[in-house]
């Protein structure tokens, strides 16, 4: 199955995993302050996602250089 040979799909699933962690952090925050503070949740999401996306861009570039020439 060609789909299984796509490292980009692996990174996509990784991104989903990191998003699940963010969801857990937001739930913890809501339980901690016993309220849904939109501003605070936006700030957490913004900082967390900015970091994750930055790391994933670096990973994407490195894997593209290293894995694509080997046909993966």
């Amino acid at each position, binding site marked *: 199955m060609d789909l299984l040979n796509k490292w980009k799909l692996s990174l996509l699933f990784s991104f989903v995993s990191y998003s699940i962690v963010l969801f857990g952090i937001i739930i913890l925050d809501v339980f901690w302050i016993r309220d849904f503070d939109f501003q605070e949740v936006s700030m957490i999401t913004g900082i967390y996602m900015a970091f994750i996306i930055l790391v994933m861009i*670096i990973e994407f570039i490195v894997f593209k250089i290293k894995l694509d020439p080997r046909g993966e």
Partner: protein
Amino acid sequence: MLINNQVKIIFLFVLFSIPVPAIVFLIFGDIAGGISLLVFLFLSYILYRYSGKILLRWYRAEKVASLENISKKAEISPPDMYLFDHPLPLIFTVGTGGRYAVALSSEAMDMFDKSELEILFAHEIGHIKNGDVQLNTIVALFAGSFAAVSTLALWGALFMGFGQNYDPAPRFIRFFSMGLVAPPAALVAQLLVACSREHVADETAVELTGNSQMLVESLERLKHQVDLNQVGVNPGHAHMFPLNVLHVTELYDIHLLLFNTHPSLESRSNRLKEASKKI
């Protein structure tokens, strides 16, 4: 190449030693930050010094001999030979600070004859001679420890009553945790371990034994056996083996694709043919 590898090792340890002391410094001040920096530097030294032994213990390898003859040919000090029990025909070399050990699995011992083993050992000696082993060992320790988190998650899920290891729930938990740890672990391996190391080690093996055809055949046999017995290995250790032993058979394994640091067998075979023509 040796100096280049040493710079990479220093980079990895700096990356390991700096973040936590920096956070401690920001929160608790300069004394706590300084103490934590000292602790991390000491930990880095211990990890550097004993990484080979840790990996040998990881595979429960036992010392059986030392490789005198072939190391004499290569003009290096003889590495120790270790045996470990594994259903795959694996061979790898670990060590830092000039003391190296070549570990061979029980399946490889059964499968290969004396001349095939000699050429596989020559390949490993090639890694020692070319200065790859220290970096491979340190990367295996870091990437392997990262990747082992997913196995811990699987075991944790099993102990918490999520069913058997073939049930969807624990496998999904493993897939999820692999999604978290695989990209950074694979990034370390891909950034620091060069694909060309295998070509150079192959060429050294051919120089030492004068037999390129047998190396290709041994690698093909190894590949065939690995394809038949699809047993999981820690993906963070995959770069230490003579070829890529990781398999993606279902969607749950897709993160293993990121850990392939080996050139294809075809390109290695072509390079060896060219090298043998020169000899």
